[in-house]
């Protein structure tokens, strides 16, 4: 199935080559979980701070292992920021 992945800010470096700067449509196995997708892109837990599925925040406390993605989902990931 196909899902969209958006990696923002300092996470852009994890995207495979492509014409769009921060978004890719990717092919994944049916039944893939959020965490499996994040690991597939070698993003550490510390970096994958803010995870959104179709624009909805998946709280850090929610088990991302159990969140199964479906065809057409858009996963957006933002890193933590504390500077100023």
């Amino acid at each position, binding site marked *: 199935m196909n899902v969209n992945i958006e990696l*923002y*800010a300092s996470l852009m470096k994890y995207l495979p080559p492509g014409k769009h700067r921060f978004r890719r449509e990717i092919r994944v196995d049916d039944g893939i979980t959020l965490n499996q997708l994040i690991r597939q892109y070698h993003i550490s837990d510390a970096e994958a701070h803010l995870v959104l599925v179709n624009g909805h925040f998946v709280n850090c406390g929610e088990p991302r292992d159990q969140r199964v993605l479906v065809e057409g989902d858009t996963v957006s990931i933002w*890193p933590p920021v504390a*500077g100023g």
Partner: protein
Amino acid sequence: MNQSDKDRYARQIRLPAIGESGQQSILDATALIIGVGGLGSPAAMYLAAGGIGKLVLCDYDVVESSNLQRQIIHADDAVGDDKVESGKRTLTALNPDCQVETIGYQLEGSELVEAVRAADIVLDCSDNFPTRFEVNRACVDTATPLVSGAAIRLEGQIMNYQPAAGSACYQCLYPRAFGAEESCELEGVLGPVVGVIGTMQAVQTLLLLAGQGEEMVNRLLLFDALAMQWQGVTLPKNPNCPACGGDRQAR
């Protein structure tokens, strides 16, 4: 509000979202600003220009030449001065009617709590998780609204805590320090990016003081300058939040 105030703030009084009553609330308000750096510079300057009654500036640092690229409250001749004193000079020049109080050391413990309690609103313009957690905790404990901004590299985030609305707090978003501490010194930062976030803090502060916080409850804004994207996210209150949530009593 006298005629001089009405003239000076006419353009924002004209806005239905502010009006004379909103401007009066701004004129009567005290804001505590934690950090007079990249975020605190534009935030303090817009609040002073917008007529806030009193600003309390808190920062223990001195101005360095490497600050000047983004910390626009500090001029070239301020290098070596305390940031709070340099900031006060700029703010007083911008608007002599704005009362500015300075605290040139790091507020901690009960002194921080009392400073937060004395303010109508707090702006977290600091640069590290431990300070952010302590400021958030003091705001939760005293039910004081908080506008929290953060920026580094080419990215930034902004959210606010509205106790009267039962909103999420900063630690609902960051229950713990994530990853290694990153600094602008090591990672770099584009000046206007912190300017955008600090300016947004001023926008939210003025609107909150004028009683317009409804649309901002539980909203987190994320900014990526390189992608030229803003993303607005609903940030739910975390029942397990270490600062405002259910396990708080267990601490």
